[in-house]
Structures are given as C-alpha cells and as structure tokens.
C-alpha cells in the first residue's frame, strides 16, 4: 500500500465499484445527519485525501467494543468500514506480536506526527501508579499519554474509555478513570456504550476528512449525530409507554404483547444513544425490541445505578437497600411523627401554663 493512496483508489483496488463508493459516501452523509448538498464534499474528500492511519489501543477493557466493531452492520459498510481506516495497530487483530507489534505503533507515530487518529478502548488506571493494567511492562496510562502525543484527535471508544464502566463502579479499586481525565490537550470524542455502535468511528473519520475538524458534540462530549436522542424518544415500544401499558413481569401477558418495559427497570428514558435508530447486527434488533429493558450502558456510571431491573436504583450505591422514593417516604414518616410529638408536647406545656395561671389566682 502506497502512503499517498486515497480512499477511492484503495476502494477501487479492492474491487469496489464507483457506484458502491458513492453509495458509501451517501450512507455516511446520512448517518452524520448532513444535508444532501454536503455529500459531494465527502466524495471529493475521500477521492483526494490519503487514508488516515489509525492506532487502536486496548487498555483496561473486555474487548466487547472490538467485537462490536468487527460486526459493524451495513453490508456495504462492513466491507469498507473496517478496511477503509488504515488500521495500523490493533492488538486483537494484528498478526504481529510483542516487539514487532510495538514497532508498528512507534513507526506510525513517527511517520505521521499529528496526522493519525487514536482510538482508545478501555480506561486507564491511576491507582498505585497504574500498575493494574500494563502492556509490555508499561502502564496503560503511559502508553496512552505517549501515543496521544502526536494524534490528530482521540476517539474514546466504549464506556470504559468514556466513563470507566464496570471497573470504575464504586468503590473503583484500581482508580480507573475515563481517558478524558488523562488527555487534556487533544480533542477527545466520547463514543460511549457497552459496546458502542461501530459506525460512529467511520462516521467520525469521514467527518474529520471532509471538514478537517471533529463533528459537533453534545453537552456530554459525544457526536451529536448519534447521541443527541434518547433511546426512549425513538423506542419501538414508546406507544405503549404513552398509553400507560406496562410489562409487570417478564412472563406476563403484557410482555407477550410487547408492552413498555419501563417498570422492568428500562433506562431508555435517561439514556442517550442511537440503538433505537441504528439498531444492532445489521439493523436486526436492539435490547428493548428483543424484550429486555435498556440498562443505560452509554450513560456515565451506569453500573452504580443498580439493581438493573427496578425503575429506581437503590441509593446510595445500594447501601441502604432503598430507592429514592422509599427514602423520601421514610423522611415524610419521620416528619409526621415529629409533628405529632410536637403537638403533644405543646398540649402538655400549654395545659401546664393554664394550670399555673389558675393556681396563682387568689
């Protein structure tokens, strides 16, 4: 592969027809929520610009993001998505190992200073100097810092990288932190989810190529095109929510009817993700559609909002074994008792005063 090969040249070499190439550009534009008039810009960018090298780091994680990435849906995309980015380093997939593999990473960093995209899967750990996760004897925190130095932009891919996910749940023994906490001087794009949607990576790269900047982000630092809507607001079961028809247990009549899973602990109403629109496995389904409540995996610290199958989580961190409404009712109960006690006390005191007054009369 020559270094200056463009995406288009590369795609043609791989046997992709010009027609399919256009289809891909249009699909990308649609996915990014761009106007049709913007599509030619994507085409010209992909025809004129060389492929962006991508380094994919696997830090403190479970590789579910990588698995999702490999299974990215659209048949057209699945072919291109994975190949269109010049994936120079990814431990899970590369043939090289050990020293060779590290050399590839260092070479890409040296050859393209400020010109590669860094995708990070997994969190970094700060506890005990980061010893809880090391690769080749180097702590992941140091690897991340070193690799991010020359990156054009950093994509935090998956909930581990955006909010430390499971290992960051209370009490967080390894002091796992999102990469945003470590990388301060580079644009960081959060792509949360456990796992997240693979198309976001290609979308982000295409956007970067076309406009030379990272896509617009939401108030939580996520690409707006994918994360601006709640799962709830585009849910296939939303009509049942609005109608007030709820599943009460997983085997009741409502569940068979496909009613709303709100009372089964569905976190859709507080979760921002594209599951309900993009869906998974080639648009086959997503959890709620399949009958399971959303667990809110793309939300910060979702693992601390347990248990998953109740509408309200037990607070704080399940320590009291009560949810916020039960705590509230207890507080109201205490207030009620206090009022009764105070009223009784008042009656006693006032009665005493009256007695004393009568006694003092001549």
């Amino acid at each position, binding site marked *: 592969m020559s270094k200056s090969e463009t995406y288009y040249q590369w795609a043609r070499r791989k046997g992709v027809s010009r027609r399919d190439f256009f289809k891909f550009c249009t699909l990308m534009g649609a996915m990014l929520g761009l106007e049709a008039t913007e599509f030619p810009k994507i085409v010209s960018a992909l025809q004129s610009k060389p492929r962006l090298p991508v380094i994919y780091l696997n830090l403190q994680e479970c590789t579910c993001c990588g698995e999702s990435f490999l299974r990215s849906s659209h048949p057209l995309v699945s072919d291109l998505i994975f190949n269109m980015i010049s994936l120079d380093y990814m431990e899970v997939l590369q043939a090289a190992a050990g020293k060779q593999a590290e050399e590839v990473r260092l070479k890409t960093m040296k050859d393209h200073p400020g010109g590669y995209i860094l995708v990070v899967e997994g969190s970094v750990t700060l506890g005990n100097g980061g010893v809880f996760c090391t690769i080749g004897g180097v702590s992941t925190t140091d690897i991340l810092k070193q690799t991010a130095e020359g990156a054009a932009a950093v994509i935090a891919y998956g909930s581990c990288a955006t909010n430390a996910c499971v290992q960051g749940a209370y009490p967080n023994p390894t002091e796992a932190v999102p990469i945003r906490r470590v990388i301060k001087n580079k644009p960081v794009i959060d792509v949360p989810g456990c796992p997240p949607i693979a198309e976001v990576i290609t979308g982000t790269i295409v956007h970067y190529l076309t406009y030379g900047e990272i896509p617009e982000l939401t108030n939580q630092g996520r690409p707006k095109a994918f994360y601006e809507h709640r799962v709830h607001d585009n849910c296939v079961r939303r009509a049942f929510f*609005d109608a007030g028809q709820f599943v009460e247990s997983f085997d009741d009549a409502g569940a068979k009817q496909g009613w709303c899973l709100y009372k089964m602990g569905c976190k859709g109403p507080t979760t921002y993700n594209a599951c309900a629109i993009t869906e998974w496995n080639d648009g086959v389904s997503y959890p709620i559609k399949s009958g399971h409540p959303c667990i809110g995996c793309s939300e910060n610290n979702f693992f601390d909002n347990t248990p998953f199958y109740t509408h309200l989580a037990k607070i704080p961190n399940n320590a009291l074994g009560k949810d*916020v409404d039960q705590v509230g009712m207890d507080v109201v109960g205490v207030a009620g008792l206090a009022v009764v006690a105070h009223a009784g006390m008042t009656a006693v005191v006032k009665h005493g005063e009256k007695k004393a007054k009568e006694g003092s009369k001549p």
Partner: protein
Amino acid sequence: MSILRSQVYVWEFPVRFFHWVNALAITILFLTGMYIGHPILDTPGEAVGHFFMGRVRYWHGIFAFIFMANMLFRLYWFWAGNEYSKMRLWKKEFWRDAVTTFKYYTFMTREHAEHVGHNALAQLMYFFFVWLGGLLIMLTGLAMRGGSDPNGTIQTLFGWVVPLLRNEYQVRNLHHFLAWGFAVFLIGHLYMVFRQDILDDDGTISSMINGYKFELSSQNNKKARP
C-alpha cells in the same frame, strides 16, 4: 370577655394569589410526578386508543411551567410588595428572630415575639424547601424535558445540568428526592399554620384568603386569653 384586636392588612392579593396557585401546582405536580414514577393504573386494550401516560406527562409539564411562572412572579413581588412580602436573610434582626423563634418552638421560652407577617424560622423553611428546593427541581425538570428536543431552547439553556450530575439518571433521582422535600414541607407547614391559629387566635388561616390578620392591642396578651 372581648379582646381588643386591631385588623392589619398583611397579605396583598398577589401574595395570596401566588400562595394558592403554588399550592395547587405543587399538589398536581407531586401527584402526576408520582404517577409518572409509579404508573399503577393498568390500561386495557390496544395502545392506539389510549394516551394516559402521555396526558399525565403533558399536565405535569403544564403545571411545571405554571409553577415556574408563579415563582418568577413572586420573585418580582419581593421587590414590589409590601413589608410583609419581603425576605431579608442578610439582616441581623432576621437571625436574632430565628433564634428567638427556635427557642419558642422548642419550649425553651414560653412567649414568642409577635409576628404579623412570617417569623424568621418560617421564612427559612420557605427559603430552603420552596425556593432552593424549587430552583433545583426546576433545573432538574427542565434538564430532563430538554432532552426530548436536542436542539431546542430548553436544552440549550439547561443542557449543562446533566453533565454536572454525571448522568440523567442522577438528575431524575434528585428530582424525586426534591419532590419529597415538598411533602415534608407540607406536613410542617400545615401543622404550624393550625398551631399558630389555635394558640394565638390571630386569624392566620383566614388571612390566607382575605389577607387580614389580627394584632393584639393589649401588650399583656396572655392574660387576656380566656
């Protein structure tokens, strides 16, 4: 034996109006909010014929905006209203009165300073439960509403609340928690109102409707009680 009392016009109409609109709004918001959190009613049949939860959320929103407008109006009336409509937490007398009233309510002293308006402790409760709690419940509520329209005005203005509390789930939790604050407040509020009316016989309850309270003319008021 008749007691000499003079009539004082304490609560101007806007204050009374605010009070009852607030009472209504909070009641409806609490009930609809609890239903949204715990939808206990079962709607039979096909979803197409129903919009019950949707309607409950709709009215929750309508009364939320009534509540907010009402609070904003009252904020203006702190400035425009009469002496009794003001809340001056920064005054020394306010905190002195808070101590005196606290002693009275905890039976440390038998008598309390006569208040035609609110005593300092009552005002503190309004400040914490209605104003501070109200402000936070508005912010959390608006933050959750804003999410439905990601490019809308509400989201632009209040989108910062969600990242501040780390995720929207915590925003909802806080919203619930604050709602219970209003329930606790109501219990204390009702008790204190009735207690005041019974012990001092000063027309506290009727003043909420007609605005007049009755000040004792005689200094030695306790002796004058029957």
